[in-house]
């Protein structure tokens, strides 16, 4: 029985490699797209140059404070700040060429300084933003808050504007109707202290509050990867994800190919030979699994050579996940052949199902960003296990024990798909 089995498998492999479209889709497309996604989502060590948020600043005040805020925002790595007029800024946000526009109104500096110490009317900053970039708007507003606090406080405790405003505030305390007499005394004491602080000798002005109010802590960041000294590699996830996606597309082609064989009478000729049904389906499953393994090996070999993706965890676990996923793909292809009535009808539905599996499996974006209920649903999607297994064995650097769950889930899926395929396969359909 080895001669026909070998011939059946060889035939599938030859037909696969003879089809240029299949080869490009299976080998080149995942590499190209995974390279792109890997670069976008962090690249090697998260060092990818991220795009800066385009911000327009309308300075209607032109005071020392507003100019300092503009300069401070321009110095931020995450922002690309340019000056503009109000109408120009609003139009740019509407067109999408700017994500956020900030309008500092006339007298912003003095009004903000007054509001810093006394319960007076606060000046209003208008922020125009593109509603499709709400997250960026929040980020810009946070940076703006910090910048305004720092610049205004620095000016209050150090600058000429601050001095004048402190004196003005001291003069206005007695006339302030909203303050109790005891509070007026405490505020006068505070402002007099600030006045004395501002009038100290220039030699001591470089210390303390001269820099303004700043965030009272420092952050030390540490990416937890396989082990100390190993950087996170965004390409590991993207290559896993895209390989999974395009291997499943290959699985769809396997199913469609079998339906085409049925349509063209080839299946009839195969069945006329003294071969078991198990060999006819099994040989197709073996060849599909071999192609799947080859795609994974080529994709990760490329990722290793070009982007430094390494199997930081168990190599046996990685291979186990690859083999289990390849078998699952083969069974998935057989299931399409079993359930599909015609190649055209089967193609649309199976591609839709594949894309849903890929999406829910976390091949495009990691599953942990899904809401909790959806994460629970994805436990029933085999691609989720494939992605978890590949992530665990690559950049997470976990041991073989972390691969057992994914391998088990994928083999279970293989069994379910395979049994369904055998049960539903229409052996006699073409002979009506």
């Amino acid at each position, binding site marked *: 029985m080895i001669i026909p089995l*070998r*011939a059946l498998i060889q035939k599938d492999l030859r037909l696969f490699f003879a089809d240029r479209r299949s080869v490009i889709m299976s080998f080149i497309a995942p590499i190209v797209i995974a390279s792109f996604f890997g670069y976008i989502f962090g690249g090697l060590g998260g060092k990818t140059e991220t795009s800066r948020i385009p911000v327009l600043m309308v300075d209607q005040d032109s005071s020392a404070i507003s100019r300092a805020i503009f300069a401070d925002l321009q110095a931020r790595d995450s922002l690309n700040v340019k000056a503009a007029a109000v109408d120009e800024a609003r139009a740019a946000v509407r067109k999408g060429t700017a994500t956020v526009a900030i309008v500092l109104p006339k007298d912003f500096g003095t009004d903000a300084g007054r509001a810093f110490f006394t319960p007076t009317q606060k000046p209003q900053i208008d922020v125009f933003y593109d509603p499709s970039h709400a997250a960026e708007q929040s980020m810009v507003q946070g940076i703006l808050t910090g910048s305004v606090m720092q610049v205004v406080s620095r000016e209050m405790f150090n600058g000429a504007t601050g001095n004048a405003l402190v004196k003005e505030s001291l003069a206005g305390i007695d006339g302030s109707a909203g303050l109790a007499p005891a509070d007026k005394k405490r505020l006068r004491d505070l402002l007099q202290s600030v006045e004395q602080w501002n009038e100290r000798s220039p030699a001591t002005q470089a210390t303390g509050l001269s820099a303004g109010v700043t965030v009272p802590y420092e952050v030390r960041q540490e990416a937890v990867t396989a082990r100390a000294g190993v950087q996170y590699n965004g390409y590991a996830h993207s290559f896993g994800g895209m390989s999974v996606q395009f291997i499943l597309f290959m699985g769809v082609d396997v199913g469609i190919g079998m339906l085409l064989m049925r349509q*063209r009478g080839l299946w*009839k*000729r195969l069945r006329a030979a003294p071969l078991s049904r198990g060999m006819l389906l099994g040989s197709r499953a073996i060849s599909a699994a071999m192609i799947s393994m080859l795609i994974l090996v080529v994709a990760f070999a490329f990722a290793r050579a070009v982007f430094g993706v390494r199997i930081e965890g168990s190599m046996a676990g990685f291979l186990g996940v690859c083999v289990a996923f390849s078998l699952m793909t083969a069974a998935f292809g057989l299931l399409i052949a079993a359930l599909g009535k015609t190649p055209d009808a089967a193609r649309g539905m199976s591609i839709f199902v594949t894309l849903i599996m890929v999406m829910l499996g976390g091949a495009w974006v990691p599953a942990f960003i899904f809401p909790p209920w959806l994460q629970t649903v994805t436990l029933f999607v085999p691609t989720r296990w494939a992605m978890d297994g590949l992530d665990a064995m690559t950049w997470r650097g976990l041991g073989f024990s972390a691969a057992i769950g994914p391998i088990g889930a994928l083999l279970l899926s293989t069994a379910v798909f395979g049994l369904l395929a055998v049960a539903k396969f229409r052996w006699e359909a073409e002979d009506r």
Partner: protein
Amino acid sequence: MLEVKDLRKSYGTTVAVDGISLRIRKGETIGLLGPNGAGKTTTVSMIAGLLRPDSGEVLIEGRALGADTDPIKRKIGLVPQDIALFDELSARDNLAFFGALYQLEGAKLERASAEALELVGLTERAKDKVKTFSGGMKRRLNLAAALLHDPDLLLLDEPTVGVDPQSRNAIFDNLETLKKRGKTLLYTTHYMEEAERLCDRLVVIDHGKVIADDTLHGLCRLLPVTNLLSIELQNTSGVGPLMLEKLRIVDGVRSAELTESILKVGVHDLSADAPGILQWLVSNGHTYSHVVSERPDLETVFLSLTGRSLRDS
């Protein structure tokens, strides 16, 4: 070589094959005739082991055809109605693949491929991909793919569908060669002329039943009209309904129709009846310039056997 006993097959409430029995001796060529949907392909599929009959049995050299892996299937070569080949592979690779399904390998496989290619006249194109072949060449290769394991019984399911006359002749030459080599052929077709050229016997089926099983000569004997004389008259003056009425009562005349200057006269026994008819025409002043005798086609046979037109079935 092949015995089919009371085969029955239904799909739901539709009866596809309804008790077909036939027997083919070794070296014999049988034509299985019938319109589309008559049950020809279903019958062939059951004989080839592709379909499990609801009842009845298929015996190959006296042995019942068993499960999928029954070695007796090696005695059968199937030429499907479709061109069942891989377009992306060469002719030789296609044959190597189909040969391997029957456990052929190495020198034995190469020899079988070379012989099959030679038989169908495609040796020169052995290395070319099938997708570069004409329809006729593909049909010939389709036949060759069924010959690699040297089967004794060839099941040919309308193997000339859609080919030009030249390719059809080439396929017929191939089949005649196989016939001379002692192969047993079961040939399904729509076309009487194909069956007439190739087959020793014809089995006509309709609605899943055998309605006739005889030689072509035997089938024609069942017909009221076995030959149609087409007589081109030199002068049609005086030829009308009255003349046709008189002609229809002449000995041996079964029918008489006139279309323009062509008089068509149906007879049962050509050699006995034709001279008298021609003499009657001359003696009644109707001279003729051309006479042709036509045999009945499958349409006529089928109409006679079922009372229905083949095309309408």
